[in-house]
């Protein structure tokens, strides 16, 4: 290497990232060039001063929560549109209720899929048997297998006449209620429990 090339290589000898061939050539040049040797010493001093500088550490936890808030706000825009706005009352009310239920289920399932592990540390700790402030009347608290496909969950709820009333909580607990007043939520328990992807299903309330 000539003098200029050697000069340009010095920082990478200093931070120890030179390939061995380049390193050898540079070392040969350094042996004959006091000017480059002086620069090598100066750059070593500069690197030492830089890495000896004040080190301030940031804590990742709070920053990560901000990141999740941002991701959730931008990747699940449908969630922010809940509840649906007022609609014309022309259609029969239970159809609207069913449609809203499906929407809610979709959003709830999406949240369930996207549920951050982090939240489990920050959310109030709650077990599946604790009582939660939920809608009045009968209901079921249920936990589904994480790998259960959304469509399967939907069809199970349709078959059993249930809809998602609340949840999932940080620990994945859904509160289910009757899809229409004509349905009996507690009567759906056996069918629910028989499903292989239902990890837990218990009646809530009185």
């Amino acid at each position, binding site marked *: 290497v000539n003098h200029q090339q050697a000069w340009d290589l010095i*920082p990478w000898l200093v931070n120890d990232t030179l390939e061995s061939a380049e390193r050898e050539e540079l070392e040969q040049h350094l042996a004959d060039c006091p000017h480059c040797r002086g620069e090598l010493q100066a750059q070593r001093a500069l690197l030492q001063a830089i890495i000896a500088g004040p080190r301030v550490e940031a804590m990742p936890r709070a920053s990560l929560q*901000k*990141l999740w808030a941002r991701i959730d706000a931008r990747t699940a825009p449908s969630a922010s549109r809940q509840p649906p706005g007022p609609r014309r009352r022309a259609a029969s009310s239970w159809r609207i209720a069913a449609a809203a239920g499906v929407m809610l289920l979709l959003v709830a399932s999406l949240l369930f899929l996207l549920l951050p592990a982090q939240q489990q540390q920050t959310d109030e700790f709650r077990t599946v048997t604790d009582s939660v402030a939920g809608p009045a009347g009968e209901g079921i608290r249920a936990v589904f297998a994480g790998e259960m496909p959304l469509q399967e969950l939907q069809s199970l709820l349709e078959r059993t006449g249930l809809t998602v009333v609340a949840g999932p909580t940080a620990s994945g607990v859904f509160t289910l209620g009757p899809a229409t007043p004509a349905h009996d939520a507690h009567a759906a328990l056996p069918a629910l429990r028989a499903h292989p992807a239902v990890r837990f299903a218990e009646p809530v309330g009185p």
Partner: protein
Amino acid sequence: MPRVSPSTSDCQEALLLQRIAARDRHALEELYHAYHRRLSRFLLRLAPRYDFADEVINDTFWVIWRKAGEFRGASQVSTWIMGIAYRRALRALRAARHEDAVAQRLRDGGAEDHDSGDAVATQDWLAQAMRELPEEQRLALELAYFMGHSCEEIAVITGCPVGTVKARMFHAREKLRRCLPQLGGAA
């Protein structure tokens, strides 16, 4: 020195990116924790403000969340991530430059002289000289000396030819030359 990870961890990080592309939140958290310390130390050197470091790190991971599926292994994962952080940091530094210049002038009005010659004053003097470098030159120097990246890696991170990286380092070294006699004592 936080040197570039060996290839085994690069493979693991590439797998994390695949999981992130499939919207695996645990994978994003794992990568976040692996990089937060490294990135925050780097960014807090550039601007000692937590809000700046926070903003750049989260901007970087917001891009990673959206673009993880586009990583094709053309570089190491760490180089790819540093490249995203570099562009975000450069943009934030440029945006803050005017604001900082005004603040600096205000500070200079009532500044105390650090002429005692002790280690703290030397650090202040170096920090001041580093702040006066153009952003690209300063970032090249920090990437090389603080982060320990090779010239070729810095070329990938900054999206520049190797010759440009060498030129930026050359100019940064020239401008910092007036600090060197003092630093010589610290060597």
